[in-house]
């Protein structure tokens, strides 16, 4: 019951935050210099056409009224027309989102297990070579911006050791995959095309690595730190002194409390993948929401920018709710903290 109440409170405050985000984004859109009608219709549009556009889009109304028009459209999924692609922004988002979701899932979930594994190994071999190696690589990878990883991967694995398709994208042109889930690897396997699945995997591997390596090493570091911290606690000394084998102590008593901080951090990292994907998608020609958003930003396509930022905010807030719920399930103490 306490858990349910905590979750409801969490949801309510998220709705407030998301509404606030829409105000910030709308203000940002209004701050774009220049006449929005002129930006949408081009430099040669006659004045009557501009005036008609303003009338239809409520641009002559006061700003707060414009906000409510915009918000009620946005809630229904209507974000206007993209001045860059000349299509409905909502349609663009529908087309580009699956690629980003596929990338973010692969960059977010498998690395978590790698991080936990490395953290545990590092803690169990404290100050021996596996620990030193993990920590050394950790320092280097955490210091590397994702776009630098992306560029270095293209140079190293695209040209020097050519294992990666350098043109980028999601799939080589000789393959076609029947869409089922929108995620190519899964769809190719469903459609019985192992060669296409492998090709899609090679396209995905390096963008996913570029996105995840730094975060993975940071999560490994946090796992290591909390393992070591908990290993000194009295209850561990107690179970050890009762003669419980070290393996069981580690697995049953040490791992669960030590994983909680990693799960919390991992959730935030997972959500921030959408942000870092902006440049990685662009560098690898990955046809996703983030590269669409990046193009929109560079072309001052404000309807599209606003929609992408809002969708990413939604994904971000949604992820952090899920993470909080997972943390509450793992750790009963969190339920108390959240109800205050």
């Amino acid at each position: 019951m306490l858990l349910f109440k905590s979750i409801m409170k969490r949801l309510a405050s998220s709705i407030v935050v998301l509404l606030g985000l829409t105000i910030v984004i709308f203000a940002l859109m209004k701050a774009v210099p220049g006449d929005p009608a002129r930006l949408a219709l081009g430099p040669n549009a006659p004045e009557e056409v501009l005036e008609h556009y303003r009338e239809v889009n409520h641009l002559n109304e006061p700003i707060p009224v414009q906000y409510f028009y915009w918000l009620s459209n946005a809630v229904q999924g209507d974000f206007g027309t993209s001045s860059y692609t000349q299509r409905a922004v909502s349609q663009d988002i529908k087309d580009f989102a699956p690629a980003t979701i596929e990338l973010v899932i692969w960059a977010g979930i498998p690395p978590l297990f790698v991080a936990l594994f490395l953290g545990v190994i590092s803690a169990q071999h404290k100050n021996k070579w596996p620990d030193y190696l993990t920590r050394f690589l950790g320092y280097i990878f955490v210091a590397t911006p994702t776009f630098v990883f992306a560029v270095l991967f293209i140079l190293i694995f695209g040209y020097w050791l050519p294992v990666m398709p350098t043109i980028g994208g999601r799939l080589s042109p000789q393959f076609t995959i029947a869409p089922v889930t929108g995620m190519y690897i899964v769809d190719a396997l469903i459609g019985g095309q192992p060669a296409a699945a492998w090709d899609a995997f090679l396209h995905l591997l390096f963008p996913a690595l570029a996105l995840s390596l730094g975060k993975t090493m940071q999560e490994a570091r946090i796992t290591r730190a909390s393992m070591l911290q908990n290993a000194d606690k009295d209850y561990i000394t107690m179970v050890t002194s009762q003669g419980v084998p070290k393996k069981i102590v580690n697995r049953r008593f040490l791992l669960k409390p030590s994983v909680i901080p990693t799960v919390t951090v991992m959730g935030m990292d997972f959500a921030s993948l959408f942000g870092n994907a902006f440049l990685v998608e662009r560098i690898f020609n990955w046809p996703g929401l983030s590269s669409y958003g990046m193009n929109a930003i560079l072309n001052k396509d404000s309807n599209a920018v606003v929609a992408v930022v809002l969708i990413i905010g939604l994904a971000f807030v949604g992820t952090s709710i899920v993470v909080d719920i997972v943390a509450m399930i793992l750790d009963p103490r969190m339920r108390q903290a959240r109800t205050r």
Partner: protein
Amino acid sequence: MTPERKESIVRNWYKFSAGGASVVGLIIVIVIIILAIFAPIIAPYPEDAGAVVKFSESKLPPSSKHLMGTDTMGRDVFSRLLFSLKGTLLMGVLVLAISVPIGFIVGVLAGYYRDTWIETVLMRIVDIFLSVPALVLALAIASIMEPNLRNSMIAITIMWWPWYARLTFGVVSSLRTENYITYAELTGAGLGHIIVKEFLPNTIDQILTKMTLDIGYVIIMGATLSFAGLGEQPPIPALGNMINDGVKFLPDMWWLTIFPAVTIILIVLGFNLVGDGVGNIFNVEGN
């Protein structure tokens, strides 16, 4: 210098240098700062920091004459790299110098007025800014301004203060009901006094630790904006825009990309190692 002061410096240095990695970081940072300050003297071709064209020397690989090769316009990559350091360091320092005090004040007010509408309003605003990945909004904000170093700093600052507000709020709201705060209030201390004399000394350790760890992240974000074309504009060199220029000429002219990339990694590594050492002094866990 009093003996106690001397002893505390020795003790702090001992804690900072435990493990040795932080000393390496400190050396990297000091070298980078020196290179940034003396770039005009050290750079073999100082004029190459601007819009210079030397066709006879273009596209040369690294050699003793051009340590890191030359770009398509014949400019010395090493010289341009040295001149880019100043903007990179300024980015890290200025963004924090502005966003940390703002975040501290917001956090301390929200914490002091805990459980009132002031806390609700301030912390919801903080939550709004933390509800989108910082890079996404920073890119969007930077894109509506003229692209240059100053505006990219403004965009990052707007996204950075909420972290400090949340950190300060966490500490202050738990100290709020301590007896010594109540005592200060009862004896007539004003809000300003309580903030400066009671809350600041209790939060400064965590803030300083987070700041030293954050310099690296701010630099990463600045370089990312610059890479996207929303930072320093050519011909002024910046690590991000140099990499962006170099990508078009991969793999043949690898030196255009590799050297700025390694430089960013080294700078961020240096600051992160120093941050760990500072965390050890104050006994604060990073992140």
